[in-house]
């Protein structure tokens, strides 16, 4: 699933470790989400959306193209 996590993180000038601390997950988890290797659970997706002040559908796109 495509997502805008990296883009939104960089807009805030955060490192992956900064975002990981906000989400209370490991930096590896943030990296795996950003590169699309791992799709987060619904609770973590909500947490991500809250951290960035967005809706989930603003962050994630499940369309193939």
């Amino acid at each position: 699933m495509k997502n805008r996590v990296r883009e939104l993180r960089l807009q805030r000038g955060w490192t992956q470790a900064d975002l990981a601390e906000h989400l209370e997950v490991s930096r590896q988890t943030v990296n795996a989400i950003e590169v699309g290797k791992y799709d987060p659970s619904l609770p973590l997706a909500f947490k991500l959306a809250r951290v960035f002040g967005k809706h989930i559908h603003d962050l994630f796109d499940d369309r193939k193209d």
Partner: protein
Amino acid sequence: MNSTDTRSAASPATRPALIAAAAFAVTYIAALAASRAALPIGVKAGISLAAVAGFIWLVAAELRLIRRLDELQRRIQLEALAFAFPVSVGLLLLLGLFQRFMTLPVDDLSYRHVWPLMVLAYFVGLAVARGRYQ
């Protein structure tokens, strides 16, 4: 509690599990050595029970560690175990079948050989699972 403590194998969160693993290894090796030594059976049994206590400590430490992991780290652990369990049991099954019609280089093959195989397979599975999500 900050789950980012679990970022690497050498982090403070993993230290109790590593200490417990080392303690178990020491007590297990001591029990193996004692089983071959000329000692009273009560002493042998006592040292063997110490290895069991070391194992219980290791399991408790591992469970505490797993509960502190985030969802991806838990998935990685699950994939490592999902690899390790069938590989180690399957290998032992295969060796057992071979043993029925040929002499294997290992004379004393028994169920206690499952766990070192499982540990080895776990670390292989862990490396593969970690690589998948990098």
